[in-house]
């Protein structure tokens, strides 16, 4: 499994984010009450998106090559989660200082320009890259995040806030493109790959 580099200047649109939190709901028929019981496994991102593509011969060639290099479900890639090309924050990426045991709180070197709802991506020791969302405005340098980090990143690891992405792989073994009159259409249906 290799991480296939996304061609430069990639922008996706019509992104659909479906974070999946494993749990079951037990409902009572008598009183219509409900109770949630967590199921095994980590919360996991499912992301669909369409490539915003300049229909030039060069870019279609590069993306066709990219799709083929993914080899269906085999290889992973970093899908950008911002639809625009502008950076999410103007300042440099902060680094990890520490992470709470439950993985829901991260202390960073600087929380400048960070706000609730922003995306972030951090590399984990296992080689995975976890996408998360800030679930509150930072308190000093303490970030509250969702979903949790499954591992503690090495202290000093930079968190990608400028151009966050998710490390994903395609779900279907058949994943290609459409081509009509010289316009190519690349769609991606992916799941987080850990």
């Amino acid at each position, binding site marked *: 499994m290799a991480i296939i580099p996304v061609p430069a200047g990639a922008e996706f649109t019509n992104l659909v984010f479906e974070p999946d939190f494993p749990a079951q709901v037990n409902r009572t028929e008598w009183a219509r009450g409900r109770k949630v*019981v967590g199921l*095994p*496994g*980590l*919360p996991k991102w499912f992301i669909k998106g369409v490539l915003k593509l300049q229909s030039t011969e060069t870019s279609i060639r590069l993306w066709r090559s990219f799709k083929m290099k993914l080899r269906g479900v085999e290889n992973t890639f970093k899908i950008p989660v911002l639809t625009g090309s502008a950076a999410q924050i103007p300042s440099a990426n902060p680094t990890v200082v520490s992470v709470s045991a*439950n993985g829901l709180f991260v202390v960073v070197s600087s929380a400048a320009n960070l706000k609730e709802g922003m995306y972030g991506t951090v590399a984990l020791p296992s080689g995975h890259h976890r996408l998360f969302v800030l679930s509150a405005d930072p308190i000093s340098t303490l970030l509250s995040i969702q979903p949790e980090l*499954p591992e503690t990143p090495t202290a000093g690891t930079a968190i990608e806030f400028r151009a966050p992405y998710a490390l994903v792989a395609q779900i279907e073994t058949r994943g290609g493109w459409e081509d009509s009159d010289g316009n190519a259409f690349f769609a991606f249906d992916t799941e987080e790959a850990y």
Partner: protein
Amino acid sequence: MPRPDATASAALDNNIFPIHFCFLDIVGDPTRANTSGMQQVISGSGKPDLDGTYLGVPSKLASVSPVKVTDRGTDTVTARLSGIIAIDSASMTILGNRANWKGRKARLWRLIRDSNRTQQGGIQHYYTGYMVNLTHGGDGSHQFMEITIENYIAALAAPAFATLQDQADFDPGDLSPRASVALANGVGGNPLTANTPVVVGGGVGDGGRGLVGRIIADQLK
């Protein structure tokens, strides 16, 4: 199987996010895994089997079947391990030696967490068994090794298929198995000396009384 303590029981009134822990005592490759998706380290529990590092996203342990408890013990529990032949050759080598797993412990624990993912109450042990069998299987979508786990009641209650003929295994001086075979064959004589057998019945006067008749006739002599 201990019940949840008071704190854990109270937590059951609200949403819960339990974690299950599994420990397979395989020689050379003790497997510890948990279902939370995060690595869990347990130390100082006072239980040597429980202390250890439980991997969150285990590459080896694929699944553990539910535990069904009845008054005759529990139904067979199965643990599925990743069984890709080429990649898992190290595991295959370890498991290929039956002494590395057969009859060794497999244990399961459970921990209750509340919505804040905070532990409620102690860690509850709910199953201990012995790994008794291993199969390798798979289909087009996945391959696996399946370890069958029996608890001690099932392991001890299994029929031994022993008969009177095995008596000598337990009591080398006992010759009753030989005597029973000799009698059934219509052969008398003292089995202790194994001397020349005396054929009884089947001759004149047997009158077609059959085996039982011949044995009775033998007794009456």
